[in-house]
């Protein structure tokens, strides 16, 4: 009886994220992107198209701003005042940051986006009714809405044979976004379970991380002390969870985009480095 449930677990259900929420995480998938190594080559983005059945929208719809690239490389020029960008371009691979205090989650009227025990920010396509509030409330603007039925236009025969059967092709009216390649996570977890062991770094990589020619991206389980990504987060003295970061070495690289908004993202970026000549 749920009322009983309420009364028994009242204090538990009143716990916020800082006390770990109402359940303990099995994993907390996290990423580290070294912007000094990111050359902005788009390999990750295209890998994402291939892995996640992303729709190709075509020129006109791209022009209307309806592109579906879950992982986009943002390019900025930092030396606006100078005649030439002598320090080159700034590339930023921007995908869903899988925030732990995600702003998209509480606003969804039907709970189509929620937080999994893996610390992922999941989007349930079947449940989505397309109110698009989540996207409006995402400071990173990394949620993409199916404004049309792309399966009709994007994969003319036999291109559709390339579609990855591990995940769906989304129909019009639902929101979608980067999932950290949840289908790969799924497979890896099942495999590990069958061999009854923990999921390790080598079990899988998201498509983007796998493809990165300069290995600028690192992915893993933040809760696993031994994982490479955890070591890196620790090395760069960024913690997941607390609203305020206190680095022993303030000059140490490592930041999260829009840290100030306190959404607690799971993607750690390392500043790109430039040498003044």
């Amino acid at each position, binding site marked *: 009886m749920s009322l009983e449930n309420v009364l028994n677990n009242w204090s538990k259900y009143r716990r916020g994220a800082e006390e770990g929420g109402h359940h303990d995480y099995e994993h907390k998938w996290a990423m580290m992107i070294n912007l000094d190594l990111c050359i902005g080559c788009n390999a990750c983005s295209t890998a994402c198209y291939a892995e996640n059945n992303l729709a190709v929208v075509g020129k006109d719809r791209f022009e209307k701003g309806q592109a579906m690239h879950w992982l986009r490389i943002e390019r900025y020029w930092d030396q606006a005042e100078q005649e030439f960008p002598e320090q080159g371009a700034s590339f930023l691979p921007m995908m869903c940051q899988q925030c732990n205090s995600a702003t998209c989650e509480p*606003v969804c*009227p*039907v709970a189509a986006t929620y937080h999994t025990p893996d610390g992922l920010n999941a989007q349930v396509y079947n449940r989505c009714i397309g109110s698009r509030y989540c996207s*409006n409330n995402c*400071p990173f603007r990394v949620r993409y*809405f199916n404004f049309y039925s792309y399966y009709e236009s994007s994969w003319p025969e036999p291109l559709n044979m390339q579609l990855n059967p591990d995940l769906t092709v989304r129909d019009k009216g*639902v929101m979608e976004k980067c999932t950290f390649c949840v289908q790969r996570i799924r497979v890896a977890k099942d495999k590990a379970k069958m061999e009854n062991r923990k999921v390790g770094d080598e079990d899988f990589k998201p498509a983007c991380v796998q493809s990165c020619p300069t290995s600028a991206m690192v992915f893993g389980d933040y809760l696993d002390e031994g994982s490479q990504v955890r070591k890196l987060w620790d090395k760069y003295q960024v913690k997941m969870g607390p609203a305020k970061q206190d680095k022993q070495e303030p000059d140490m690289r490592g930041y999260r985009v829009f840290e100030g*908004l306190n959404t607690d993202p799971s993607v750690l970026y390392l500043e790109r480095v430039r040498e003044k000549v």
Partner: protein
Amino acid sequence: MSIVNEKDINEQIAWAKINADVLRSMANPRRAYWISVAMCLAMIACAVTAEVYQYTEGMGYANLNNPHMWDMYIATFVFWIGMSHSGTLLSAILHIIHADWRKPIYRFAEAMTTFSLMTAGFFPIIHLGRMWNMYWVLPYVSDRGHWPNFRSPLVWDAFAISTYLSASMLFLFVGMIPDLAICRDNAKGWQKKLYSVLSLGWTGTDRQWRNFRKTYMLMACFLIPLAVSVHSIVSSDFAMSIMPGWHVTTFPPYFVAGALYSGCAAIITLFVLLRYYFRFEEYMTKAIMEKTCKLTFAIAMVWTYLNLVEFASVWYGHDIYSKELLIAKAVGPYAWVFWSMIFCGSVLPFTLAFQSLRRNMPVMFVVSLFLNVGMFFERWMIVAPTLSMSHNPHQWDIMWGSIIEWAIVFGSFGWFGLLFLVFVKVFPSVSMYEVKEMVYHRRRHVVNDEAAEKFHRRASDSKTGTDEPGLEGA
């Protein structure tokens, strides 16, 4: 000056005439009526066509894109919700403060409330990507154990609007029962049947009146906080987000003020129309118009003030995103909308400050229309700019409504108009019994003080009389 203390209504007016006039307004429509009905239907047709296209082809044709997920539909939704606050204001608030000049005009105001709600209700549904699943927002028991997310302001909307709609419909209906009885008594044939059913067998007994009075007062008391909460909740669709320009503490009062404002403006519009169409000069008098205008002016100033508060708090605040946005509103691509909103919303209402203008029906008609245009701009300025430039500059984008969106917005006015046109022919758009009360009391208290005096004396006598025992038995 003579006109200054002109009466709200001529208390010598015969009750029979009141009945007659109002019933006349319901009888045999004029050609103008049918033309307007046809126009409304045409407008609705546009909207339906557009919606069917959008439904089959996809939301993309509404010019929505990655940053711009809401825009026109939600803006219009807020607009109509705002419109709906007038009726409640007039009937409920003025009722409990015993401002009886409301009596001739509150009925259509309340009708307006209900109908604009029924219009507003469409927009959240239209804007859904998969509207056929809209009922998922409601907390029904599902064998999958699904519930809506009660955290989401959109769910609050669903609750608030359904509550508000049912409550205001009841309020409208209850208030109409005695008049429906009058209709019943004067109608023939199928209309008689209809009104007999609707009037629930009202015969004006003292018991009915007593309960009626209490019910009406109780409902009024519920409706006022409800109306306030409804638009506060609508405002939290924005205020609960973290987006610059939306995450504003003053939004709830700001929205409520804006709502009352547009509501009053709409009342003035319809006031003039009804006065002209149904020759209600004797009931919708210039004096009442003046009072309405003064009210509107006051609210306009409140709205203006809240605007300034918001600007100031952003300007002196440290949120660079909001500040950036504020500046962009004033000088960016949406600037002309912004400034016309300021003009229509804050400058134009000063016409209401001049008695000569207040008493000039055509002028008031035009002004009131522009006030509402300003309010529509306000809604657009609330929704669009934030979407066009939020935190991540990479995704900044300017967007204007597409033909599809405009067609649907256009049609919503047709829908509202149609409902209203039907209403004025089926139901008395002026409350007969309350006008009678108004006349009755004024005649007693205002005109014939002496009689009132006498009346009271008698009353006290009769009271004391009851205290004497024994007489009963004698």
